[in-house]
């Protein structure tokens, strides 16, 4: 069976869950090969082997880290030329989508972004995407070249299947043309200690109704082990960081449970959350459009409802 390349999402060798998900998908399409960018592949190998990577292509080249996107696209191009894969799967991040875009041009291949399902079909690989703010789903295929597909997190449960994870070093010479945009500095953001927004099983978000005080939202989120999100109104007001924004111009999340507190539910916000499995809203305004989406809603003040719910959940647990 042909190889299916999976770009590994990792932080210094710590492999992220999305990689296990993509390797699981890759096994249904062919023989998974991981593509590892960086120097600490030995830290990653056990996990890559556990989820079925037969090979691990390793590109350890500082240029890929030091210049934006273009060198990564060249590195992926080199692996595609070497492996002639049946498909290339990448976790759907900003960076990866841009690298996939350049790879598509280089290899004259069709590109699909933000797939929520990837299957082997009669006409090759078939994907499903959620479009128009989650109001439609489309099924698509790639008709030219090697299918290049970016896949959203949490779309399949990772399942283990031991394989060899044989390391295959790939020597990549990054062209001068690809060194146009230098990453001159990196500033680490403060870690919240909470799950990542796009990967979390539960998300609790606050909006205009918080008036800038996210403490009841955060406390309730921590009680549930949830990530914290924010509406655009809350972000634009400077109450919460943009990296936590849920919506069309922020993150699109699809957790098991989404709690919207003090969020009216404008299309901008719905685009980021309406494919969540279960939705709860708390809002003072009974006319708020968010209530059209909910499985359970409370018309009331989040500053009394959330603390009471927090206490009740803690009590139920003890």
């Amino acid at each position, binding site marked *: 069976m042909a190889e299916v390349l999976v770009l590994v999402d990792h932080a210094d060798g710590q492999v992220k869950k999305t990689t296990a998900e993509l390797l699981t998908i890759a096994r249904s399409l062919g023989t998974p090969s991981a593509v590892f960018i960086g120097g600490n592949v030995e830290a990653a190998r056990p996990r890559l082997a556990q989820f079925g990577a037969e090979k691990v292509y390793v590109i350890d080249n500082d240029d890929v880290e030091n210049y934006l996107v*273009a060198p990564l696209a060249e590195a992926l191009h080199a692996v595609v030329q070497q492996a002639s894969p049946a498909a290339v799967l990448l976790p759907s991040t900003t960076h990866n989508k841009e690298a996939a875009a350049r790879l598509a041009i280089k290899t004259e291949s069709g590109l699909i972004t933000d797939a929520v399902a990837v299957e082997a079909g009669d006409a090759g690989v078939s994907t499903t995407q959620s479009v128009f703010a989650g109001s*439609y789903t489309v099924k698509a295929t790639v008709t030219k070249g090697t299918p290049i597909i970016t896949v959203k997190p949490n779309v399949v449960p990772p399942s283990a299947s031991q394989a060899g994870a044989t390391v295959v070093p790939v020597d990549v010479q990054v062209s001068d043309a690809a060194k146009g945009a230098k990453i001159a500095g990196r500033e680490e953001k403060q870690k919240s200690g909470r799950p990542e927004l796009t990967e979390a099983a539960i998300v609790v978000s606050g909006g205009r109704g918080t008036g800038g005080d996210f403490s009841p939202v955060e406390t309730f989120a921590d009680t549930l082990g949830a990530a914290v999100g924010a509406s655009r109104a809350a972000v634009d007001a400077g109450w919460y960081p943009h990296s936590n924004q849920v919506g069309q*111009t922020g993150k699109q999340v699809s957790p098991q449970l989404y709690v919207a507190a003090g969020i009216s539910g404008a299309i901008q916000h719905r685009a980021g959350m309406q494919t969540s499995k279960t939705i709860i809203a708390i809002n003072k305004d009974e006319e708020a459009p968010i209530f059209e989406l909910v499985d359970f809603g409370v018309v009331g003040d989040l500053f009394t409802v959330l603390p009471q719910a927090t206490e009740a959940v803690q009590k139920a647990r003890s």
Partner: protein
Amino acid sequence: MNIVVCVKYVPDAQGDRTFNEDNTTDRANVDGLLSELDEYAVEAALKIVEAGEGEVTVVTVGPEQAADALKKALQMGADKAVHVSDEAIHGSDAVATSLVLAEAVKKIGSPDLVLTGLSSTDGTMSVVPAMLAERLGLPQVTQVSTLEVADGTVKGRRDGDAVSESLEASLPALVSVTDQINEPRYPSFKGIMAAKKKPVETWSLADLGVDAGQVGLDAAWTKVESFAQRPPREQGEIVTDEGDGGTKLAEFLAAQKFV
């Protein structure tokens, strides 16, 4: 400083967006407008030119109605506009769109900056800027929430989830900006009047030297096989807080096994 801003005419997200029978986005029967995220790119371009000198050209690829998107950008203050319109473009994917845009940018001249928004609000792929950089051989300074252009260099901050990166490139460069970068202006009355006299050129594929066989639905490298409307969510129980709203919420969570 010559700046080209690539903009898109999109169906209004407030309307009922849908598809044509050939599985392409319906752009005719749904009210359209300049993609909101492109306004930030227009604003960024205007700010740069206002602080120094130069010219802002807006370009779009799209059907006849796409002229509305250009009009809005001209009303905001862009100097001139180019509309690439050709029946053969209907159904083009991002790859073909980037090809047409790249050829249009070349024909406009050699801009110091090619600016775009972070994504369209209809396709939402965020891939055309990277494709344009690849095709034009320009440094890619994308998804920045700050932008500084001085002494032949462009600098910007790209905010990720875990890190913020400071990017630097020499001009000419391709830059995409996020909605965090500025507050786009509303067209003034003066701007609206002035826009009527601004030049708008319409180009066909032949004007760009692009073979019609390279674009459009049949030439696309991806194919939408089918579309389906997601069934509307059924509204669940709504309670009014009478002092026990939080308790009821917790009971719902317990019943659904979240607790």
